[in-house]
């Protein structure tokens, strides 16, 4: 985007990172995917690692992440992003490698790849967008959907007898010795966005030091799938998802050293 000349006495304090392409994103209005894409690309721009970073896109609403993220990208089959990222990092260990996946992708069809990638301590960053639903396919129940949550495949609300419990896969991941840094964030407020940015920054620094797997869960919204306005969806997220998936670090480097 061409910026107009800066008015006298004013300086530029924020602009879209050049690590995001000019392609308008296809996401629904207010969708957290766009925010996470931007924050990830801001960190890559600020660290000056654009030409040394490779991302792996999932299947899900963010399947076109490679059109928006202006770094080398590889598309993976549904659920397999962390396995593909493993291969890329092993062949090109001097690159910064990350995977980007939704909850259906990472915690349903890709559960085995997810657990084993972290169990091997692959030196990558895994970004996990938990919106508690299959957004792309029309709002079906995900493993992370909370109890009572109405989706197209749980029209009366998720029932644990029928569909099990919300899968706290990030908590499971934190138990594995291969996990170096495991943390849960959100993008519903400006401060939450600032914290997520710091976590991504730290993760790439740990990757440079070959520390093992960094895993960042981002609790996100799906205004369309949840059938709410974006503002309502952020409120619903705070009131209903945060109690089950509390924000904060699940494993920090000091704990890893123990």
């Amino acid at each position, binding site marked *: *985007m061409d*910026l*107009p*000349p*800066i*008015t*006298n*006495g*004013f*300086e*530029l*304090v*924020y*602009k*879209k*990172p050049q690590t*995001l392409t000019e392609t*308008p*994103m296809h*996401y*629904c*209005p*207010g*969708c*957290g*995917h*766009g*925010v996470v894409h*931007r924050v990830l690309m801001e960190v890559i721009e600020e660290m000056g690692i654009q030409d040394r970073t490779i991302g792996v896109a999932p299947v899900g609403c963010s399947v076109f992440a490679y059109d928006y993220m202006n770094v080398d990208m590889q598309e993976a089959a549904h659920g397999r992003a962390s396995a593909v990222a493993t291969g890329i990092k092993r062949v090109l260990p001097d690159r910064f490698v990350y995977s980007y996946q939704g909850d259906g992708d990472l915690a349903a069809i890709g559960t085995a790849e997810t657990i084993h990638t972290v169990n091997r301590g692959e030196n990558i960053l895994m970004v996990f967008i938990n919106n508690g639903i299959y957004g792309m396919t029309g709002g079906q129940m995900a493993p992370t959907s909370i109890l009572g949550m109405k989706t197209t495949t749980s029209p009366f609300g998720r029932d644990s007898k029928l569909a099990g419990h919300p899968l706290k896969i990030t908590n499971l991941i934190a138990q594995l010795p291969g996990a170096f840094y495991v943390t849960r964030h959100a*993008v*519903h*407020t*400006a401060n939450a*966005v*600032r914290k997520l940015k710091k976590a991504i920054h730290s993760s790439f620094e740990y990757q440079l030091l070959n520390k093992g797997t960094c895993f960042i869960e981002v609790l996100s919204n799906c*205004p369309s799938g949840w059938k709410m*306005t*974006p*503002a309502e969806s*952020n409120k619903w997220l705070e009131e209903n998802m945060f109690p089950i998936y509390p924000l904060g670090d699940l494993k920090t480097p000091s704990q890893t050293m123990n």
Partner: protein
Amino acid sequence: MIRGKVLIAEEICKGCELCITACPQDSLALSEKINLKGYRFAVLVQDNCTGCVNCALVCPDAAITVYRQKKPAKGINPEIQVAV
């Protein structure tokens, strides 16, 4: 008060209103007009923006650019500062 300015990419904006919710100054609102996608877009409606960047941080479509008034260097008239 530190003064700020925001520039909103009207054709990129999807009118999600998250920037409006995030603005501590109530500086933003939706336009009366619609853009080519058919959305009402965010516009600055009050001259009280502080350039805090909150709106830009929550925007899912990276539609917001933020400027902030430079702190005037001592002895220099801010009116004649040259933009970089």
